[in-house]
């Protein structure tokens, strides 16, 4: 099947793989964010631990996990292949190049942003995914693995919080370019819909990354070591919890 391999090793073919996997990873971000909102539930992590137990044991989720791994793998590999091809297309650099006058910073630095996100991802996977799946966590009152306590204690380490916030800023800039860029690569450019795609992409990038960044910041600044909200914010947390009940 040489035409297939030729298609997907061509410059446009690789772009298409990066675009499709990128949009797939965006859908993962939404699921991940919504699930994690349970960290804010004022119940000593019971709901969050039920959720993480479900995510770690449900056969459908466990299957999709492999698809997700493939999604990350292809996205990173193909983007790296494009990056190295593109870098070798100009071996003598300009003495003076004012690209900031014709394009956005994030558009020119997707590889840098992607690398920051990858470093974060590895730390993140080791700390939570690996320990939840392969490590020994104490049981909570429902006899589920108490991942919540690990999250709370991690988010009380300043360097860990700093890494998370930095990674979310990088992810936000990565998405600011990546979201609309994926549609362009797939040929989905139309004067009626492209302006809407751009607005949705901007809103998506900011809302998702803000949502993720609030989690470590909330635990670091507004809860004690057990994840109990400090007295200053407790009424607010409880009233939000009540409203969402």
């Amino acid at each position, binding site marked *: 099947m040489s035409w297939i391999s030729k298609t997907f090793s061509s410059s*446009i073919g690789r772009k298409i793989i990066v675009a499709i996997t990128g949009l797939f990873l965006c859908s993962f971000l939404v699921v991940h964010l919504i699930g994690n909102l349970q960290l804010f539930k004022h119940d000593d992590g019971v709901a969050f631990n039920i959720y993480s137990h479900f995510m770690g044991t449900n056969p459908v989720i466990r299957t999709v996990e492999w698809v997700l791994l493939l999604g990350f793998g292809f996205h990173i590999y193909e983007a790296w292949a*494009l990056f190295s091809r*593109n870098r070798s297309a*100009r071996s003598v650099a300009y*003495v003076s*190049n*004012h690209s900031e006058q*014709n*394009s956005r910073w994030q558009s020119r630095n997707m590889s840098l942003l992607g690398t920051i996100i990858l470093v974060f991802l590895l730390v993140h996977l080791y700390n939570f995914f690996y320990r939840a799946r392969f490590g020994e966590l104490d049981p909570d009152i429902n006899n589920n693995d108490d991942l919540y306590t690990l999250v709370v204690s991690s988010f009380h380490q300043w360097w860990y919080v700093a890494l998370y916030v930095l990674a979310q800023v990088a992810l936000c800039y990565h998405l600011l370019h990546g979201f609309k860029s994926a549609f362009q690569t797939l040929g989905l450019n139309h004067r009626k819909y492209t302006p809407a795609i751009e607005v949705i992409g901007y809103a998506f990038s900011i809302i998702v990354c803000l949502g993720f960044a609030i989690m470590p910041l909330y635990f670091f600044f507004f809860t004690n070591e057990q994840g109990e909200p400090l007295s200053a914010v407790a009424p607010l947390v409880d009233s939000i919890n009540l409203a969402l009940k």
Partner: protein
Amino acid sequence: MAGSNPNAKPMNLTLKVWRQKNRNSEGKIVDYQVKDISPDMSFLEMLDVLNEDLLHRGEEPVAFDHDCREGICGSCNLFINGRAHGPEKGTTTCQLHMRKFSDGDTITIEPWRANSFPVNKDLSVDRSAFDRIIQAGGYISINTGGTPDANEIPIPKEISDRAFEAATCIGCGACVAACKNASAMLFVSAKVSQLALLPQGHVERKSRVENMVAQMDKEGFGACTNIGSCAAECPVGISLENIAILNREFLAAKATSNNLS
């Protein structure tokens, strides 16, 4: 001279010019002073003044590409102060005028930089890679016969306008020069979408995009990452929509053509 400003004061400028003996030698930036440059001169006329000066001093003049000097041939190609064709939007180097600069300015002048555009000498580059991409499919191979009647093939005005917009590409290579990835996709997409929009182009539609993209990759141009520098620097305003059309055409051709290799 019509349109000239009698009050415009002549300018003295410092030029930092890329000098390179030939394709295989190392180049470097050399500083030159030019005096009494009229603001009404074009950028290329200013370089003519520099070259006359160099000739009088018995030095080698600076080689640069130019032909029509009317902004339509696409020959001129200078990277001026970090921008393809200089600071003015929608302008070729020959249509850039010295009134855009001020007395005492330092101007850096470099050739297009891309491995697919090797430097011939100084500021002149070899853009034959573009010719080979066009030869790979950027044409319609039909026997034209006699002159057809006007409007024999109905083409909606909107479509013919869009095809014409794409056809205005002058092949100067500013898109490649401005692109961080030295990608030629704006150039290729202009020709592909021009011909894909018109009925005459439909016969070879699939093989055209397959062959032109294959040749583009073979020439060593980078891959587009939708940065948008190309369209921002294009002197004739070719839009990014063409690259989306190219991607669509490529995917559709690969999925449905009879070409198995």
